[in-house]
């Protein structure tokens, strides 16, 4: 009997920006319910990888499938299906500034899934409560703190009931105090929904408690891949040890 197909499969992916390769023949498999933490120095390709998995960037070589559907080279309709099944949380939140927190959450279900306004708002309020902001429904993004903005962004992604969540450095634009509130929300989302996640982060404590696997990327290649606990406590590679020392000293 063969193992079940992985939920996310990245196979031999290459991608170049101008001078050099950003992703250099990168491969990884992710099973349902797994949480993968990606680390690496800036420019190592970790954000690009997430964007490729969401079809926000095109790749030059290799293939990417999500839920058995090919992402690279997909037509607009297929790409939309993949994006509907995938939630993306950005480093800089990217909330829609002209909509309230609640509208940010309800717009996609209403316009894409044709959910009624009443139903979308009911779900939206429940999600706001889930991310600990039940009283901020009517606030515009400019009235919210960074941590609150990121929590709304997470609720916005969850509103489409994705089966995969991609987090691109969700806390690196935040003050240390606000990081904790966002990390707790991500942790709760994982526990409550058992959702498959890829998280680009350097938060070691968070990674150890939530991630099933961790990976270090450098220059578009995987340097080391290991179960999270092992990765952070006893890494095999000297490059990983050096990197972990650097982020601890940050």
């Amino acid at each position, binding site marked *: 009997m063969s193992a079940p197909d992985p939920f996310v499969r990245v196979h031999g992916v290459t991608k170049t920006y101008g001078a050099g390769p950003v992703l250099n023949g990168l491969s990884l498999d992710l099973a349902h319910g797994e949480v993968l933490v990606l680390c690496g120095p800036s420019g190592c390709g970790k954000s690009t990888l997430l964007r490729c998995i*969401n079809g*926000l960037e095109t790749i030059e070589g290799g293939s990417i499938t999500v839920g058995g559907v090919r992402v690279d080279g997909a037509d*607009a309709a297929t790409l*939309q299906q993949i*994006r*509907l099944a*995938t*939630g*993306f949380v*950005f480093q*800089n939140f*990217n*909330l*829609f*500034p*002209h*909509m309230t927190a609640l509208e940010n959450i309800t*717009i*996609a279900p209403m*316009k*894409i899934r044709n959910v009624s306004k009443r139903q979308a708002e009911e779900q939206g309020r429940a999600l706001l409560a889930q991310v600990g902001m039940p009283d901020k429904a009517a606030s*515009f*993004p*400019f009235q919210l703190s960074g941590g609150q*903005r990121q929590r709304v962004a997470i609720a*916005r*992604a969850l509103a*489409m009931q994705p089966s995969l969540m991609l987090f691109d450095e969700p806390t690196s634009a935040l003050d240390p105090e606000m990081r904790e509130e966002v990390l707790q929300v991500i942790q709760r989302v994982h526990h409550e929904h058992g959702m498959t996640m890829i998280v680009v982060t350097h938060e070691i404590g968070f990674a150890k408690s939530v991630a099933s696997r961790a990976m270090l990327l450098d220059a578009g290649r995987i340097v080391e891949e290991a179960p999270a606990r092992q990765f952070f406590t006893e890494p095999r590679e000297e490059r990983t040890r050096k990197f972990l020392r650097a982020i601890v000293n940050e």
Partner: protein
Amino acid sequence: MNYTFQFGVLAEYGPYLAGGLWHAWWTSFPSIILTTVLGVVLAAMHLTRSILLRGAAVVFVDLFRTLPVVVLLIWIHYVMPILTGISSSPTTSSIIALSLNGAALACEAFRGGLAAIPPTQTQAAQSLGFSRWQVFRYVTLPQAFFATLPSLTNVHITVIKNVTVTVLIAVPEVMFRAQELTIQFFRPLEFYTGAAILYVALIWGYAVFMRSLEKLQKWQPI
């Protein structure tokens, strides 16, 4: 200076002159609406993947912002009927000419406003599953609208000012009536000054209205 002011004639014929404002407004108002709608459509055409639509938008803008309004107006009113056999009223011809010219200007204003929206907004919307059209309709255009308002106001003011050239095809707006009265009474200073005051009042009032729209923006960019 050898001229005796007789602003008294304005007391008598001022109402007739001011009545031209009615025609000025009903020529400029439909033109402003058409200018704005066409401007948005042209700006949207610039953003499509279709080379045909983008090309059409570029040709439209380059043609109608380079054509002097007077040439365009005379051409539409006197040449079009020869070509097509369809003639239109002076007011309709004027609305067409002013709208074509205004739309080319409005397109560029909207393009400027849209370019100011960070591409990350589009990415966030796409990652939620929005189509390109939905991204434009719900995310970038509503944000660009407020960013475009000041330059859109300038475009609208240009459209209103251009109404004065319709004097050439006898739309009975303020300038036409000032000319008419001057020929009759030989009082150019009084009547043209009256026309100036009426247009300034109309355009100033319009600008105040447009500025009040800016206050509708309850959010701030982040």
